[in-house]
């Protein structure tokens, strides 16, 4: 039994009612970047990137440090704005959204996993996970119930009352993944998800991401780790100096339509 057995991010009444954008289908590009440039002063982080990610795909973005991987991820997550070009996610032009709408976009459509987990130290694992749903207005009881289910499916239900400081790195990243999945996101973004983990914990997280991909979760993973990319992704994009220099499609099968 895999860690995500029983977890299928199926549409519910909650995630069907969205304030913006179209519901994603396999016929729709979940992510579409058109000639995106990002400059920080004299430094060009992204230099005319054009990219599409279809629903159910798992795309790994690789490249050396400073090549623009994280910048691209930030654009897709609505954490940063491009200097020029358009970023469309789920049909929504993020450049047209103000800060509040971007926050709502992230809340409902995006799940993020960070290298350093970014859990709140003062909250136990359960409340860290439930937090994402509570921000949408879900009451504490239902949010905790769903958080418990997720932690159970990710194999760390017995650690739900532990605080981040007492969890291992792998456990912390599982909690972070659970939090990212809490609102049934259309797109899961992972920024070096195994970068701060030892090999054993890294393996567990890779298994987890693979499982998620196999049940149709659209994934975009930024990583240095070739093993992670080849194991979890269906496509690998390589960046250098802010440009896409190479694109590889791997033999992998996604589950159509499950990612919506």
């Amino acid at each position, binding site marked *: 039994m895999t860690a995500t057995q029983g977890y299928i991010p199926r549409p519910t009444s909650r995630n069907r009612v969205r304030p913006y954008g179209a519901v994603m289908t396999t016929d729709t590009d979940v992510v579409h970047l058109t000639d995106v440039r990002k400059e920080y002063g004299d430094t060009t982080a992204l230099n005319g990137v054009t990219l599409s990610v279809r629903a159910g795909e798992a795309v790994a973005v690789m490249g050396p440090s400073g090549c623009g991987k994280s910048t691209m991820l930030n654009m897709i997550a609505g954490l940063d704005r491009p200097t020029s070009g358009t970023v469309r996610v789920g049909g929504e032009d993020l450049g047209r959204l103000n800060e509040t709408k971007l926050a709502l976009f992230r809340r409902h459509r995006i799940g993020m996993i960070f290298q350093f987990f970014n859990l709140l130290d003062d909250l136990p694992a359960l409340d860290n996970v439930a*937090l994402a749903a509570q921000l949408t207005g879900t009451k504490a009881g239902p949010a905790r119930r769903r958080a418990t289910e997720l932690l159970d499916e990710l194999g760390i239900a017995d650690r739900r009352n532990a605080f981040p400081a007492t969890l291992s790195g792998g456990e912390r990243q599982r909690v972070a993944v659970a939090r990212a999945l809490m609102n049934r996101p259309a797109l899961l973004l992972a920024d070096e998800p195994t970068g701060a983990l030892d090999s054993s914990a890294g393996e567990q997280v890779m298994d987890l991401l693979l499982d998620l991909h196999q049940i149709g979760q659209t994934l975009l993973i930024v990583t240095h780790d070739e093993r992670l990319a080849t194991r979890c992704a269906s496509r690998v994009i390589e960046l250098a100096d802010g440009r896409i220099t190479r694109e590889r499609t791997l033999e992998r099968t996604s589950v159509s339509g499950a990612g919506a």
Partner: protein
Amino acid sequence: MSAVWRASRAAVRRRRVQTFVIGLVVLMSTMTVVIGLTLLEASSAPFDRAFAQQRGPHAIAVYDASAVTGAQLAAAKTGVAASAGPFGTATLEWTAGGEPRRADGPMTIVGRADPNGPVDRLNLWRGRWASAPGEIVLASQDHSGDGFPVVDSITLSGVAYRVVGWAYSLSGTADGWVTPAQMETLRPTSVQMLYRFAGDVSTRAAVQARLDAVTAGLPANALSAAEPYLVAKEQIAADIGVFLPFLATFGVLALIVAVVIVGNVVSGAVVSGLRQIGILKSLGFTPRQVVTVYLVMVSVPAVVGAVLGTVAGSLGAQPLLEEGFEGLGLEAGIRVSLWTWGVGLLGVPALVALAAFVPAVRAHRLSAAEAISAGSAPRRGRGTRAQRWLAGLRLPRSVSLGLGVPLSRPGRTAFTVVAVLLGVTTVTFASGLADSLERIATVQEKASGQVLVIPSDGKSRIAGPRDVPPTGEPAKTTRTDAEVEQLLRGLPDAARVSAVRGTTVPAVGQTEPVRVLYFRGDFASMGYRDELTAGRWMSGPDETVVPSELMKERRLAVGDTITLELGGRRAALTIVGEVMDGPSGQPGIFADWSVFTSLEPDRVVAPHEMEYQVQLKPTGNVAAYADAVRAADPGLDALDMSERRSDFQYIVVGFSSTLSLLLAAVAALGVFNTVVLNVRERRRDLGMLKSIGMTPRQVVAMVLTSMAAVGVVGGLLGIPVGVLAHGYIMPAAADAAQVSIPQSVMDVWQAPMLLALAFAGVVIAMLGALLPARGAARLRIAEVLHNE
């Protein structure tokens, strides 16, 4: 440039907001400290300070000019540290001009060449010193700020003098000064010597012993009279004593707030820099160098803040002092002292260094790895049960997260609560104080009517307090006392009229005569009852109520009997009640008019010996009534007494409002700093929360909620402390003023006021938190998370 200095400069530049906050907090706190200390110092020994500055005489000696020569007086200097004189002295009768309604009687005029000298340096606050015959400088306290009418001439014993200046002697050495040459023409019979003694002068006996030593070699009976400085000191101490509890309270509050805020801000700055400390250590900085970097980092803005704060505090304290002591003649003696400057310039930076030193020493002991990880490694959760409970509440998550923020830094939260508590305490105390003083003014106004009518005696016109006297020839009313009362009752809008005559009457068993206020008319229903502090109101002509000052002075009690005796007639009055103070002027016992007629049955009272108090109907117009009185009889001066507030009320409300605002601002700065530190420390958390969909509005709500909780707690604790302070300080001030106050004056804490004050803590917290909360909402997620 050394590495330490380079690193310090870089730290200052990199932390611009923090540097600004430290500088601003230290500036405001230093300002508060300087004002607080100045008030405390002023309240501790105002007379001594002013007396020292004026080099007041320890003894004023008046010699018989025919019994001793100037040379003999100049030679008699046993135990004398400094002396001035001999100055010719004449006693002249005032006949016209001068201060309105100046008490009739003789004036002591002294011949002096200048206002300075080794002893009794006069405060020449207006005009110049007399330099020619016919010129005079009159003695008065400085009323320059309140429209005091300065007259041009005065007639003394039939001779007109041109008033060229106004001066004040703390020791009251004269009522006026002329040139020595002018004095010669007055043929003085006495000469004045002013002595400052070396050695102990703390008691009257000690001063008398010093004076005896001086006069030992002089002819017998040469000394006509002498007065030790302690007489003036006791008089002024009684006048100023009423201010002291207020001054001391605000001074102490200011000091505590400043210390708490500075400690919190500076220690927080160092704690928040632990990661940087670790990096410096890893670069090879020694622990001592690291501590130095951090001390320099906080000291640079602190020193700038302390210098600016000391200057601002001195500038701010001066008007408060001048206002507070105006009218008491101490302006010249009250200045921001050198040691207060010293505390501002040296003490506050030292406090800053100490506050920084404690956490810096902790940083000194931490290993580089520990220090670096202090900013990034997960830490043990704090207040975990409460956090879990909050997470389960049916509140918006941004609100419940905000409520949990104070729990993660309990020490910092405690400091912030204390800051808000002190701010709310000050606001509460000042509000209660202002309300109580307003109630006193209202009670007094109601009791003595809105219009005071004083018939002119045909020699001078009457001016109310702060009023310029009416112009034109003085007219004398042709009406009798009864006709004046009848006129006043007949004018439109008059509701109640009381006629009052005040005079002193010998009392059986009392060493000094008692001042008696004989009332006629509606006085019983005008509002004096509201001034009752003990007992009940008079129910018959054989009863009296007595102002509290007189009760204390004569050691009287409710139930005692005062027997007035005049011309062989007696009237026994039982004291049935005590009132706050009665009509303005010298306090006197209340007596029914029939007591006067029984003691002086044949006495015909002239109108100008009376005062008439008029209370108007609620719809009445005071100005219109006063105009009607003057129009009906030009010999009657009608004064609008409504909405008049005493100097004391203006002064106390003025400085309590100023200091409340200042302390509330400092408390808000404390909150501001706490939020800035919290936001900096929680940047990663904020970035994460925004990344999972927390909107900017939710971020602001979370940050504001975190401080609202602090504000509520500080407010709820601060209100009772402020109420207690009011309950203690008001009676203490009343005691110092030798009066009792009615309970109604103390009952200021009504629900609406308490509710408003309950919000004071939240308002202070919100004001402090709003700016950094908006900053937190604008944090760039990518930048924050990338940096982490």
